[in-house]
């Protein structure tokens, strides 16, 4: 019979760069070793406790939650709360320590535990906290006197934590500690001071030490541990090591019994604010919902809807979620009042109540969306409502929430940043002393940042064979380090709101951004504790749409909003026609090349088609090989319907005796092919007979796939059971692959539906008001997949006249001018096939000028209101602009209305005095001061003007740079991109080669495309889509990665309305582009280009990252 023993001095890897094991590993190992309980106490943090809690429940092990307080004088005290109240005090204490580190250096905060505490502060919060003073490495008099003082002062019991050093003198150390404890009448307990769960983790812990100390393994010396003894140990081994002091081991039970606190006790209450006095929350919600229903259904609430509302309200009452819905409603209501456009997304779109409350905009009854997917009586998961707001105004919403609920009751949740392959390789490589060159090479081979593994082929790809033992070590350790938490960052917008003080529930710290506070737990942790959160997200497209509505109201006198657009079914035809042509540049979500290629194949004709369109070009359906079956069934159905026949959907089915139609209800809407995340989950439950628990486990594995990779344990379960029940093995395997894909980027149907609504609205705007749409997009930059140059070009191709920025005509934003039917416009309009005067001309705003400040624009507008500027001098004097501003205007050729050419303007602007003119000379004209501009300034060639336009505006209205090289391209045999559409496609295995040349807009190598690279080129006539197979990619890698302009030869392929050139040879034409002017043309790549943004090693990530404006579209990784 082993001694009863609990380990109470254990760190996890949430003591960043110190602990060498995940919380779950610590807990599982403690169970395996037969410990009575384990206490997890991380350095000044509770960040890892929820994970430990989860594992402890799974393992059935008692868990003590505490913290290792490291004071400013580097002394250490481990504390465990006895009860909920003491836990609250501990959270308050840690929050206090975290609030002290506002504004300190980011790196310092992560390594120092983001906390600054003193013993006296701990003392003030110490009631109910059992404390353990761990013995330091060297036991000296200072420790003895400190111990004595602490024991006297500490309100609750203080223990001495005896630990061993394995330095050959453990017996003496133990005896010494026992005497010390005896003398002070302090009870002594035995600990192992564990840094990791298993001795095999020592190398990794050594590497963490090196990373922390900023040194290499060869230099680290005594900063490393001498041995691997800082692992968890079983009671028998400890009994042997503590022979003669077994009582100290048994005494740990005393603490375990005293500290009964469990995270399950956190009773969580949503704020009560939005409920008026005298009404219950549920009643208030019911009232609001029915009011909303009357607003949503002016012709009367349909019976089906009314029934659904009743069902939903009953379930909400049963689960007591009324407060939550009211809180979200309150935020959305406030935003509406401020005129901030917002829309719920995610599973909330399944709820009619959300629809009636105005949180979401898609009618779930009309779309057959199921509320059970949002909340169910069986599934014990809190609801999760995500609301997108205009990205430029989200901050207002956030500050409203802080203002309404107060700092001590509202905070953003954390995002645990994990080591990913690239960061792991870099740091491990550095710690092992690999040269920067080698680590950069290794890191550089992982395309995109979403890789999970460092594969051997990556290593070979970097020209580094795995022969070198040091390199092999580095790779092994890197694999181990991937998935370790690295630091805490703040979530993009997940708000936690509480009725009681939040700081007594979880430590709250200051965010990297000013005015933000965030808690220590991330989304998964909160879900585990059944804490609800509201995601306040930012979406650039909402900004653009709101601006578009404003412009339409101002210039066309029509009032529109999201719902109104959606209700005008009579306008659908042209919108879907446009989308079917893949004429979708700028349209939300469907503007990327992959989406554009899908549009003509999918032929969307109804809203649900857009829902499918949004969801289908994603890792899940692609990896599950579901795209082609779906498309071919759709085509078949369309053809059958055209013939007037009925179309029979074939469902994947099990062998008898199982019900062959068991998947019919799941897959009915998607023609028997699973496309959405919840379909995959339902298949697991129906076809693979997953129990509720198993399904929850799978859902969690899927949600955390990117950092834990536990999903593989479900592979056999899912595939095996489906096969055993007679399903086609290929279908079963595809289902699992699809689930893996959803793990990378989940896409539920309701989410797709919310997005599809914005797809439709933005497409509608582009279709009927192209000039409004272009202006709105330009004014909401940066967003989307394309650069302003492409937006402007697209607008012009749709018959919009675009005018250059001018100091006498432009606002800060791009604006619309009165339609004037001038002769020149007429010609341009007719050429584009648009009757003149239909669209308002679009005037580019001063915001397009590189480096121009908003404040300058404001002074210009204020001064211009009186009268237009007559001359540069007039402009300078009346607008009071600094020379730099005038220079920018001149360089951007925006002084045309002052009769100044770009060069003349620059000459004049550069000649101005730097400071404001003295009053005496204020009236003196420039010419008197400097004389006229010299006639010697040569007039620029058009090509040079274009280059300068790109330099200052990132676009040119004068010409396309490639047009100047057309003759050279023609000599090289290239045809204009516009001719690709009509050029003959090559028959399989042969055919004529075709060449096309252009500037590189986008290069992508999606993870779902097995190494195929997609390049989009642009010339003066249009864009060309290039496909490069992996072998060719390797051969032409320098050209592909390095060119700004290239010439591609290959064979043309055309299928289902999509034309692309399969490359056989690529040439770098950057040099020709450079020849257009003395000054190099700036890079023209669009924001969607991966080669310019995925390149590693651009220094450290920026310290204050902007909250992501748009969810990164993951269809390319």
């Amino acid at each position, binding site marked *: 019979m082993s001694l009863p023993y609990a380990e109470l001095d254990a760190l996890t890897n949430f003591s960043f760069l110190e602990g060498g094991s995940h919380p779950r590993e610590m807990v599982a190992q403690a169970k395996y070793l037969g410990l009575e309980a384990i206490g997890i106490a991380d350095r000044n943090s509770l960040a890892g406790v929820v994970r430990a809690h989860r594992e402890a429940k799974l393992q059935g092990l008692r868990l003590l939650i505490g913290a290792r307080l490291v004071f400013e004088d580097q002394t250490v005290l481990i504390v465990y709360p006895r009860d909920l109240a003491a836990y609250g005090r501990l959270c308050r204490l840690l929050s206090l320590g975290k609030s002290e580190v506002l504004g300190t250096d980011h790196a310092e905060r992560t390594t120092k535990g983001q906390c600054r505490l003193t013993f006296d502060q701990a003392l003030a919060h110490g009631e109910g906290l059992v404390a353990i003073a761990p013995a330091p490495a060297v036991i000296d008099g200072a420790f003895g006197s400190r111990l004595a003082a602490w024991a006297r002062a500490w309100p609750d019991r203080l223990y001495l934590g005896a630990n061993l050093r394995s*330095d050959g003198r453990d017996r003496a150390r133990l005896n010494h500690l026992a005497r010390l404890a005896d003398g002070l009448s302090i009870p002594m307990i035995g600990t192992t001071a564990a840094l990791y769960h298993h001795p095999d983790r020592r*190398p990794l812990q050594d590497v963490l030490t090196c990373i922390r100390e900023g040194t290499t393994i060869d230099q680290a010396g005594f900063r490393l541990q*001498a041995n691997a003894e800082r692992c968890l140990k079983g009671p028998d081994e400890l009994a042997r090591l503590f022979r003669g002091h077994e009582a100290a081991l048994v005494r740990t039970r005393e603490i375990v019994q005293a500290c009964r606190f469990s995270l399950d006790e956190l009773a969580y209450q949503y704020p009560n604010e939005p409920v008026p006095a005298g009404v219950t929350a549920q009643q208030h919600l019911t009232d609001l919902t029915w009011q909303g229903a009357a607003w949503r259904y002016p012709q009367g609430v349909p019976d089906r809807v009314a029934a659904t509302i009743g069902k939903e309200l009953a379930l909400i009452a049963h689960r007591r979620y009324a407060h939550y819905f009211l809180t979200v409603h309150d935020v959305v209501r406030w935003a509406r009042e401020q005129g901030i456009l917002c829309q719920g997304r995610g599973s909330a779109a399944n709820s009619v109540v959300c629809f009636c409350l105005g949180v979401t905009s898609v009618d779930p009854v009309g779309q057959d969306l199921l509320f059970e997917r949002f909340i169910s009586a069986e599934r014990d998961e809190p609801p999760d409502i995500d609301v997108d707001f205009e990205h430029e105004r989200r901050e207002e919403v956030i500050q409203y929430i802080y203002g309404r609920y107060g700092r001590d009751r509202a905070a953003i949740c954390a995002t645990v940043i994990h080591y990913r392959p690239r960061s792991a390789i870099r740091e491990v490589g550095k710690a*092992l002393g690999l040269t920067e060159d080698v680590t950069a090479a290794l890191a*550089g081979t992982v395309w995109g940042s979403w890789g999970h593994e460092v594969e051997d082929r990556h290593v070979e790809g970097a020209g580094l064979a795995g022969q070198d033992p040091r390199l092999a070590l580095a790779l092994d350790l890197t694999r181990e380090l991937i998935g370790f938490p690295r630091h805490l960052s703040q979530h993009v917008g997940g708000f936690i709101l509480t009725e009681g003080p939040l700081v007594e529930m979880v430590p709250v710290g200051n965010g990297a951004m000013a005015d933000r506070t965030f808690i220590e737990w991330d989304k998964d942790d909160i879900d585990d504790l059944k804490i609800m959160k509201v995601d306040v997200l930012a979406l650039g497209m909402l900004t653009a749409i709101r601006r578009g509505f404003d412009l339409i109201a101002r210039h066309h006198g029509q009032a529109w909003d999201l719902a109104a657009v959606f209700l005008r079914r009579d306008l659908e035809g042209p919108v879907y026609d446009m989308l079917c042509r893949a004429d979708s540049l700028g349209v939300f979500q469907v503007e990327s090349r992959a989406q554009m290629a899908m549009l003509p194949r999918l032929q969307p004709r109804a809203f649900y088609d857009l829902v499918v369109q949004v969801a289908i070009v994603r890792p899940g359906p692609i990896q599950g090989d579901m795209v082609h079956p779906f498309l071919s069934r759709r085509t078949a159905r369309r053809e059958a319907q055209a013939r007037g026949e009925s179309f029979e959907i074939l469902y994947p089915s099990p062998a008898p005796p199982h019900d062959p139609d068991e998947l019919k209800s799941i897959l009915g809407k998607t023609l028997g092919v699973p496309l959405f995340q919840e379909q995959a989950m339902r298949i697991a439950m129906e076809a693979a007979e997953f129990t509720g628990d198993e399904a929850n486990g799978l859902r969690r594995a899927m949600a955390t796939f990117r950092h834990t990779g536990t999903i593989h344990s479900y592979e056999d379960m899912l595939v095996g059971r489906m096969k055993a029940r007679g399903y086609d093995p290929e279908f079963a395997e595809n289902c699992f692959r699809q689930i893996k894909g959803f793990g990378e980027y989940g896409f539920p149907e309701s989410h797709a539906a919310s997005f599809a609504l914005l797809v439709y609205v933005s497409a509608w705007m582009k279709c009927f008001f192209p000039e409004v749409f272009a202006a709105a997009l330009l004014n909401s930059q940066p967003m989307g997949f394309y650069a302003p140059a492409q937006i402007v070009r697209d607008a012009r191709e749709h018959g919009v006249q675009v005018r250059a920025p001018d100091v006498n005509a432009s606002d800060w934003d791009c604006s619309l001018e009165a339609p004037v039917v001038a002769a020149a416009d007429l010609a341009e309009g007719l050429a584009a096939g648009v009757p003149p005067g239909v669209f308002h001309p679009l005037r580019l705003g001063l915001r397009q000028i590189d480096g121009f400040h908003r404040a300058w624009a404001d002074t210009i507008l204020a001064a211009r209101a009186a009268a237009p500027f007559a001359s540069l001098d007039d402009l300078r004097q009346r607008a009071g602009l600094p020379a730099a501003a005038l220079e920018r205007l001149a360089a951007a050729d925006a002084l045309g209305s002052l009769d100044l050419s770009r060069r003349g303007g*620059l000459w004049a602007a550069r000649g101005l005095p730097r400071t404001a003119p003295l009053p005496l000379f204020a009236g003196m004209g420039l010419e008197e001061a400097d004389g006229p501009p010299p006639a010697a300034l040569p007039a620029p060639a058009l090509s040079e003007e274009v280059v300068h336009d790109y330099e200052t505006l990132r676009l040119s209205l004068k010409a396309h740079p490639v047009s100047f090289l057309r003759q050279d391209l023609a000599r090289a045999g290239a045809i204009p991109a516009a001719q690709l559409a009509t050029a003959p496609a090559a028959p399989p295995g042969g055919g004529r080669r075709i060449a096309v040349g252009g500037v590189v807009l986008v290069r992508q190598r999606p993870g779902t495309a097995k190494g195929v690279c997609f390049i989009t080129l642009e010339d003066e006539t249009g864009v060309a889509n290039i496909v490069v197979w992996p072998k060719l990619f390797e051969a032409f890698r320098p050209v592909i990665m390095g060119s700004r302009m290239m010439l591609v030869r290959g064979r043309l392929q055309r299928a289902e309305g999509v034309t692309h050139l399969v490359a056989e040879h690529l040439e770098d034409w950057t040099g020709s582009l450079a020849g257009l002017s003395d*000054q190099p043309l700036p890079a023209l790549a669009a924001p969607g280009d991966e080669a310019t943004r995925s390149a*590693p*090693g651009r220094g450290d990530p920026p310290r204050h990252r902007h909250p992501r404006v748009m969810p990164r579209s993951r269809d390319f990784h």
Partner: protein
Amino acid sequence: MERGPRGLTLSALNPAARRLGLSRGQAHADARAMVPALISVPAEPERDLEALRSLALWAERYSPCVAMEPAEASSGPSSGSGREGLLIDMTGGAHLFGGETALLTDMAGRLAAAALPARLALADTAGAAWALARFGRAARIAPAGATRNAIAPLPVAALRLAREDVQLLSRLGLRTIGDLLALPRAGLARRFRGEAGLTLVRRLDQALGVEPEILAGVRPAPLWRVWRSFLEPVIDAAGVETVLGDLAPSLAEGLERDGQGARRLALTGFRTDGRTTALTVALSRPSAHPGHLARVLKERGLEHLDLGFGIDALMLSAETAEPLIQVQGDLDRSSQLGAADPRLALDGLLDRLGARLGEGQVHYLEGRESWMPERAQVRRPASEGPPPSAPDREAARAPGLPDRPLMLLDPPEAVTTVAELPDGPPVRFIWRRVAHHVVRSQGPERLSAEWWRPLRRGLPPRTRDYYRVEDGEGRRYWLFREGLYGREDRMEQPPSDPGAEPQIVARPPTWWMHGVFP
């Protein structure tokens, strides 16, 4: 590559890299993306500069005035280490090489022979030559008095301007130097910020020779050397020693005057047959003590000088010197070396030992931070610097580390023991065929292997448990057991047949004697 504000960038390329389309100033990461197998090494601007300096010294064969181009002049794509050109003042010197054309041909030939790519130009002014060398097309010699015409067609960048100034000129449409010459200078200068306007005008003037440009020539570091020539050749070592006794004080005087001490001495004899013979010796620390200098050479062995038929001159020189740490000398310089400072005595001893046994044969033991006892010290050549101070030695020891024996057995010797499992101390052990009975023991001190070091004999390294034991006769030993019972006592043997499962084989822990306590 070099690290700049924007991360790692490429600072120089070989022709193969240029052919792949890489460029100077490119981000290293971008280059990597283009060429994953790119081999790159950190830039060493100091060594580049050193190489340029040595080329400058070589170029002194053409003119006594050779200057390295000043750092601010470079306006290449990467300003980087920058200095990459030489300016040679050939005023009145070209005829010595057969005229200007022949001069450049000669220079080009020699540089090509040394495999140094170069661009050469010759003009009336340094500025014009700089411009022609970099931007000129065909004729790289601007005839005397025709500088203006020669540089007018060159781009404005040839004026050694900052990049943003070149950019501004380009925006104004001013491309060539000729375009600038056509404009009113005051108006032109006003268009530039701060000093840039003045710089532009000065650069123009310098190129045209209106304003002089002073070249700061490179010179070799001054040498400290003293001579003595003889009427009658000296033919034996004794004669040399006598002369050395005269030379050493005057060299020491020169060194001391400049605050320098010799680190490397050369004694060169000029033989009557027109050849030379030399003896060199390194000193462990800078010295300007005449007695020490002479003694070190004598220890080295004056008889090693091959005097042939005699030497007619002897030169003593300090080939390298370093700043001397001044020590108060004696009132009369004749007293024994080291009487004042024991450190000097140690240096004297080290130099004499080094001279006798050969350089690099005398070492200090220096502490190294390693838990492995046999790696905890490292030998460092005495010639590399002063011995570690006592605090340094202390710092290299782990805090609270138990005592080690003074001497370690290398390699450890196998012993057979009787000990309690799993990690009890030995009760009895047999070492060198003698049985010892343990009466007292302490341990284990557990030291895990340095997993990052290469494997020996392909076996995974194992943990050591060290014990201090005392036998019945009071002798104390330091033993260790390699391998932990239950953790490291078995290992996976990779199968000889690749298809088979790996086999688990026993690898019992072993005992070793590592040292004896005094």
